């Protein structure tokens, strides 16, 4: 891995012009997966686009440079030492001397410093990422605003901050590094700036170092950038493993940032597009010293902490203006509709079939455990031996295979025997529909955060034998979605159905997006996803939805209440003109209001009839199948069922033959 070159890109907050074409170009020239490239190039931070041999990476770099994408091509230096923890420091006019456990680290003022400040609890990174993804999920990428304008620095300081200083030589190589834990060092060296607040002391030290350096950079993107080995795990205070992992990640991040500073971005900042400069990354800009400025700008200007904060405010304000200006462009895009939050996810539905399967396995397991508890291992061995030798076990398996074989066959015929309905004319009862899946709720997958209409998340843990064992299954069964064909749209409620999702993703805890850097894990997850917009086949039971809203009586009462509070309208019913509404007049008013409400209701209903999704839902009915499958054709789907059925029936025949053979052999 250390031999490889890294290609790191500055992400775009929104797809630039001809982005799809560029993705295609990356694929055609360098075989970079379009989906992954899209994910790496879009965002608010830095990301590793590719990794490989220098020659190959130079070619990719040339392609990026052609389209003026800001990127870095580096041969990363593996960290050769970690920052040393400081316990105190002394300052003089020419240097700052940090007191570590067994030695002192001297920083001569006028040197170059790279600082990394991070919340090592991983909480802030999680929070910001979730906020950004939620914004994307609820309103679409275009609607993601720079809502994180609040000073991020103070947000980090409110978490579990740790500050690293890397002292660099003229060629930007790391010569020494120190690590500062707030409240764990003697602040006397700060002089008058020292306070009782550990976080303020940390801030003061940061300022001191900044003021004492000729070139200074502060990086706060740890955990947010998609960089190798720089992910943060969510760590509780007592979770030492996670904390150690995060601190190691922080060290790698510091070394990587020094590499980026040393190499400088390609193309040079001055070559960069103006439009892009006005559209800095959310985190790159927001999170203090932006990496876009890392190579070139910081060398030219000494960026102070206070000026830096001002710069952030200006940059983000400018960015907001730029964004708002772009939104008010002639096309005047309508704001993306906000989808409602999805209902809470549910554990996998316990259908009758699953209950029976679980009961059978549970019973078997309990019997086995009981036998083990009475320590009759001999008996266990004997039961195992006789059940196989007598052919009983193969026979049970044969019966199960036989049952499931016919089950699949029955489903196959059911699919074949049901004609496809058009959504606008769907009738109540068993129906088959095909169309495009659309989200009803702002549903995103829990791990990879992809907008989807359905997900099933399975978590695995390694057992003693180093094999993955499923420990939990969570689904979005409670979240309905829409299916749309040429004629209309209908709601699908997936609870209790057999869902065949076409997309699968695996990852490890702490992973961000689809990027995976660390495979040395004891836990993993797998998501089966139906992505929004995919073509779906649905076979299920169409039924009317329960009507929501007020009853006619309640609507009339509301209308009469409104009338009472509207003297002008009330006057219309004062037929004798005495300024008061008598009983007879009120009866007339009431009758008129009733008729009016009734007509409005009928009008509303006749309009609602056109919207199937408002009053019909396809779901599961007891004893009837609900199949939701991502498939390009019905024949393909039935083919899968046919093959499974044939395999299971063949297996049951073989198992039966084997069980008879074993039985006869056993009897002899």
């Amino acid at each position: 891995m250390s031999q490889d070159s890294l290609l790191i890109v500055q992400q775009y907050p929104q797809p630039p012009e001809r982005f799809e074409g560029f993705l295609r170009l990356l694929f055609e020239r360098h075989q970079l997966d379009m989906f992954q490239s899209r994910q790496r190039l879009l965002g608010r931070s830095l990301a590793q686009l590719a990794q490989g041999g220098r020659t190959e990476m130079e070619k990719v770099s040339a392609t990026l440079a052609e389209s003026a994408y800001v990127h870095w091509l580096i041969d990363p230096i593996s960290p050769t030492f970690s920052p040393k923890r400081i316990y105190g420091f002394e300052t003089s006019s020419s240097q700052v001397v940090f007191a570590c456990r067994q030695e002192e680290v001297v920083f001569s003022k006028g040197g170059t410093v790279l600082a990394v400040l991070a919340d090592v609890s991983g909480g802030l990174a999680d929070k910001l990422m979730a906020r950004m993804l939620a914004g994307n999920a609820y309103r679409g990428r275009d609607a993601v605003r720079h809502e994180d304008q609040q000073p991020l620095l103070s947000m980090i300081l409110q978490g579990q901050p740790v500050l690293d200083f890397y002292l660099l030589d003229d060629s930007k190589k790391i010569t020494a590094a120190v690590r500062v834990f707030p409240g764990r060092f003697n602040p006397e060296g700060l002089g008058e700036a020292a306070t009782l607040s550990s976080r303020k002391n940390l801030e003061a030290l940061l300022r001191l170092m900044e003021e004492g350096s000729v070139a200074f950079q502060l990086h706060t993107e740890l955990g947010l950038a998609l960089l190798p080995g720089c992910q943060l795990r969510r760590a509780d205070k007592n979770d030492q493993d996670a904390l150690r992992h995060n601190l190691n990640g922080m060290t790698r991040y510091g070394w990587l940032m020094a590499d980026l500073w040393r190499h400088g971005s390609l193309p040079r900042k001055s070559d960069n597009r103006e439009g892009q400069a006005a559209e800095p990354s959310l985190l790159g800009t927001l999170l203090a010293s932006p990496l876009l400025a890392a190579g070139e700008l910081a060398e030219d200007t000494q960026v102070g902490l206070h000026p830096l904060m001002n710069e952030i405010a200006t940059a983000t304000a400018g960015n907001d203006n730029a964004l708002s200006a772009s939104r008010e462009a002639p096309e005047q895009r309508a704001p993306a509709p906000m989808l409602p939050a999805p209902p809470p996810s549910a554990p996998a539905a316990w259908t009758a079939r699953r209950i029976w399967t679980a009961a059978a396995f549970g019973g078997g397991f309990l019997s086995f455990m009981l036998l083990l508890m009475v320590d009759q291992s001999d008996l266990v061995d004997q039961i195992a031996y006789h059940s196989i030798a007598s052919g009983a076990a193969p026979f049970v398996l044969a019966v199960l295979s036989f049952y499931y074989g016919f089950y699949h066959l029955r489903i196959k015929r059911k699919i074949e025997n049901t004609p496809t309905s058009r959504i606008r004319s769907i009738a109540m009862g068993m129906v088959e529909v095909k169309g495009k899946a659309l989200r009803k709720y702002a549903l995103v997958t829990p791990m990879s955060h992809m907008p989807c209409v359905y997900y099933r998340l399975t978590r695995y843990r390694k057992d003693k034998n180093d094999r993955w064992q499923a420990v939990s299954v969570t689904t979005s069964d409670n979240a309905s979605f829409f299916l749309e064909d040429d004629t209309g749209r209908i709601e699908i409620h997936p609870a209790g159905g057999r869902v065949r999702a076409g997309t699968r993703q695996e990852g490890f805890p702490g992973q961000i997006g689809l990027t995976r850097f660390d495979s040395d894990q004891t836990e993993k997850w797998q998501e089966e996803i139906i992505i929004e917009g995919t073509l779906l086949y649905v076979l299920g039971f169409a039924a009317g939805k329960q009507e929501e809203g007020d009853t006619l009586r309640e609507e009339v009462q509301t209308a009469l209440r409104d009338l009472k509070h509207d003297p002008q309208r009330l006057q219309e019913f004062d037929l004798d003109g005495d300024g008061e509404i008598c009983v007879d007049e009120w009866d007339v008013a009431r009758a008129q209001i009733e008729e009016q409400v009734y007509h409005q209701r009928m009008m509303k209903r006749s309009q609602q009839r056109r919207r199937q999704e408002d009053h019909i839902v396809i779901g599961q009915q007891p004893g009837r199948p609900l199949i939701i499958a991502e498939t390009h054709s019905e024949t393909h789907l039935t083919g899968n069922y046919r093959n499974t059925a044939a395999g299971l029936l063949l297996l049951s025949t073989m198992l039966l033959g084997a069980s008879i053979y074993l039985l006869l052999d056993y009897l002899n």
Partner: protein
Amino acid sequence: MTGWITLGVLLLLLVAVIIYTIIIYNGFIALKNTIIQDWSNIDVLLKQRYDELPKLIKVCEGYMQHEQKTLEAVVKARSMVNSARTDEQQLQAQNMLTDTLKSLFMVVERYPDLKADAGFRQLSYRITEIEDQIADRRELYNASVTIYNTRLGQFPDLVIANMFKFQPSTLWMIDPEHRQDVTVSFATG
């Protein structure tokens, strides 16, 4: 020993054949019921259309003083639907009603005030929507019939169908007149 194994496997195959036969038989019954249901579902929409017509005629009467014939034809076709006794009569009456409605909507083009009437627009939209749904459900009915008839001719379903004397079902056919080419004349008057 081989004999026992063969016997066991043959028994399994026999059970499989019996179960498969049951599945096919049940499939035929389900398909027949689906066809009946699909046909009834068309009737539901025809009834909805029938119920909407008096409102439409009432709205039209106010504007179309000179189109009494057209309106009367619609009313007559509607009453024919009501008085039809056999399936054939019902089909004929429904087709006639569809034709008269088409004529009505064509004539409406001459009455801009009527076209602008909100009530008329809503009713005509509703009836057109029902017409579309009827067309869809007829297609669905035909799809069900086609699946059923195809199954009747396929092996091994064919054997079960013959054994239990399942008969082919009839597709919904349009009026032969509607198959004729439309003649367009550009001659000026």
